[in-house]
């Protein structure tokens, strides 16, 4: 086993948390990610594999939140699968075995920085950040959008006041800065 | 009537009774030697030079609305000749020289103001490219100077050099560049052409061409058929629509370019500044408004208006280099329709139809080109041969691969 240590997207050893009365902004460093794209003509098999992985095929704009794996729709015949890194360090390889030649699997763990935004002012905050109809979103809705010129996924989680934001990892510091600024502007 | 300071004083003392219309409002005649379609800057300039430099007679300019109502009346008024490619630079330098003598030539103060244009540099690669361009300008007889950041800061002390995302690493200046009072260009050419006998016919829209066995014989208009030996089309923005009447498809798309002006302010900007790491260029008019612009909206459009994302993009660029402009107020935004060509350069050429000539595809370089465009189009119409400075602006360059692509964006018009 190797002994290389990871750093979070913000470039430090432990995830950062910023707590305020109205908003809590927490980096989530525990996610392993891989995308699944159905092979042409193998869609049915791919859906079946998704089914027994997630208990269903995530619909357009939707997430299936299920432990340990969760998945959301990325594009036509394409999904992102997420799971705890602690147990799924090799998620892409695990998925390859499950999907065989029904899908193309691409490791995405390194590509994204993940932040959880919770708190009473979560809606006001997202209104200052991105063009998602946050007040109309229900649990499990996901939308790809732009935050501070960065392409991000915004996932509405179970809790009424909780969204999860996946943004490009190389710009994690900028994304965090944008989120923090918005939170402070609403304090 | 000749304009002069004395004349103004005389009229002032006699109740301004003596001023006469700047141009006549003639009825169209049945036939002309040369018809120019389009009463914008290029069309009016063409008519003016046809009459003045090429001694042509019986010329008419047909304008579907009011003269000067197109892009000559809705641009950011910048003139410059800081081009890179041999196909372009001599043409634009000729244009700049014509600007320099224009007002005395047509006896109308268009406020040609050579307060200089500065292109900011933000990376080493950009510097390399600008050095190549500056050299091309000088080798073509134009002026260019490389400025250090310190020199720039001395002229624009409020330029953001402290916490800039893309540091300013110098700039390429053309001191002979500047701005012109755009409406006055149309009016000056119109008045000049009119005084030389050119019929300027407003509210006369061309609805079709009369073409028989490969020869153009005249135009159908909302005011009847008008015959002509030669027909020159100068309707940039509507080129595809007009030439469709001649069953021509062009290497052109129409796109909207927005422009902006702020409330009047006491002088802050001496010259024109363009931001090399964003989409923003700005100058200040004599009335005090900051006149600025950026990129086209990017989608085909014939609506003379744009949308919010580009407004924001432009203002973000402005705030990035001039954070002091934050408290100036945007007064008005408008849109003009550009002939975006497939290589970003214009066309001044005969068509395959005998007697039908075309001038268009100016992208957003049209205003500064007005005098040279008029001179070269007049040359082509009068002599049936391209002006030496416009030989590259041919129709067949796309088919033959003789492209003039300043930006290197290829055959996607909205990227030029």
């Amino acid at each position, binding site marked *: 086993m190797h002994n290389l240590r990871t750093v979070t997207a913000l470039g430090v050893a432990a995830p950062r948390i910023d707590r305020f009365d109205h908003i809590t902004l927490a980096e989530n460093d525990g996610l392993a990610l891989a995308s699944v794209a159905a092979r042409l003509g193998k869609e049915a098999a791919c859906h079946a594999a998704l089914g027994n992985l997630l208990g269903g095929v995530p619909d*357009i*704009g939707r997430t299936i939140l299920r432990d340990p794996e969760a998945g959301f729709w*990325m*594009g*036509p015949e*394409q999904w992102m699968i997420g799971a705890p890194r602690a147990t799924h360090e090799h998620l892409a390889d695990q998925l390859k075995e499950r999907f065989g030649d029904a899908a193309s699997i691409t490791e995405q763990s390194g590509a994204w920085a993940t932040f959880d935004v919770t708190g009473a002012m979560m809606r006001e905050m997202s209104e200052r950040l991105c*063009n998602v109809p946050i007040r109309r979103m229900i649990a499990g809705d996901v*939308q*790809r*959008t*732009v935050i501070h010129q960065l*392409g991000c996924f915004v996932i509405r989680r179970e809790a009424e006041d909780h969204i999860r934001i996946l943004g490009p990892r190389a710009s994690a510091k900028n994304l965090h800065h944008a989120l923090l600024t918005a939170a402070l502007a609403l304090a | 009537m000749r304009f002069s300071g004395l004349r103004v004083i005389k009229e002032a003392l006699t109740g301004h009774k003596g001023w006469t219309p700047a141009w006549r409002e003639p009825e169209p005649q049945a036939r002309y030697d040369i018809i120019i379609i389009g009463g914008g800057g290029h069309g009016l300039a063409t008519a003016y030079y046809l009459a003045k430099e090429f001694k042509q007679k019986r010329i008419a300019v047909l304008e579907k609305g009011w003269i000067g109502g197109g892009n000559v009346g809705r641009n950011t008024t910048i003139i410059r000749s800081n081009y890179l490619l041999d196909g372009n630079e001599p043409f634009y330098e000729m244009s700049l020289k014509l600007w320099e003598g224009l007002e005395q030539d047509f006896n109308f103060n268009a406020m040609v103001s050579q307060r200089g244009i500065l292109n900011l540099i933000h990376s080493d690669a950009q510097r390399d490219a600008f050095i190549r361009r500056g050299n091309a300008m000088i080798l073509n007889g134009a002026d260019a100077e490389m400025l250090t950041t310190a020199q720039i800061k001395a002229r624009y002390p409020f330029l953001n050099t402290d916490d800039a995302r893309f540091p300013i690493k110098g700039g390429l200046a053309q001191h002979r560049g500047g701005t012109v009072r755009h409406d006055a260009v149309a009016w000056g050419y119109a008045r000049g052409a009119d005084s030389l006998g050119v019929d300027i016919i407003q509210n006369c829209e061309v609805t079709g061409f009369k073409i028989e066995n490969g020869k153009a014989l005249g135009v159908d208009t909302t005011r009847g058929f008008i015959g002509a030996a030669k027909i020159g089309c100068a309707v940039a923005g*509507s080129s*595809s*629509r007009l030439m*469709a009447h001649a069953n021509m*498809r*062009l*290497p*052109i*798309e*129409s796109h909207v370019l927005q422009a902006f002006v702020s409330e009047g302010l006491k002088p802050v900007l001496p010259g024109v500044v363009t931001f090399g790491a964003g989409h923003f260029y700005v100058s200040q008019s004599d009335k005090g408004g900051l006149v600025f612009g950026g990129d086209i909206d*990017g*989608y*085909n*459009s*014939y*609506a003379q208006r744009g*949308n919010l*994302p580009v407004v924001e993009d432009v203002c973000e660029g402005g705030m990035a280099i001039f954070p002091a402009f934050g408290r100036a107020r945007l007064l008005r935004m408008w849109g003009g329709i550009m002939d975006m060509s*497939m290589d970003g350069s214009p066309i001044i050429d005969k068509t395959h139809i005998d007697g039908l000539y075309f001038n268009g595809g100016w992208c957003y370089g049209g205003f500064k080109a007005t005098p040279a465009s008029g001179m070269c189009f007049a040359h082509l119409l009068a002599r049936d041969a391209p002006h030496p400075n416009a030989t590259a602006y041919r129709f067949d360059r*796309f*088919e033959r691969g003789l492209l003039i692509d300043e930006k290197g964006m290829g*055959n*996607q*018009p*909205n990227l030029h």
Partner: protein
Amino acid sequence: MIINHPLLGPRDSAEFTYMGDARLIDRPDAGSDTAAQDFYDYGYLRDNPAGWHEELWFHEAGDRSWLVVTRNTLTHEISDVKLARDVARSRGRKL
């Protein structure tokens, strides 16, 4: 502008990247004797209509679909939006 994405519903056009006339889907046959002429026409000549226009938009900040949008260039009104891949197939594009 708002583009009514066939899968995602209304989305701001700022999320998209524009390319131009949807005829760019109809790439000519490189093997034809008239290929040179065909590709010149394909690459350079445009109808550029003042009115309804079928055009290609890429959902860059979205699901990465290329769309064929039918939009009026005079009013900016949008009457129809399709997945370009479906359009390409319906126009018989093969390998």
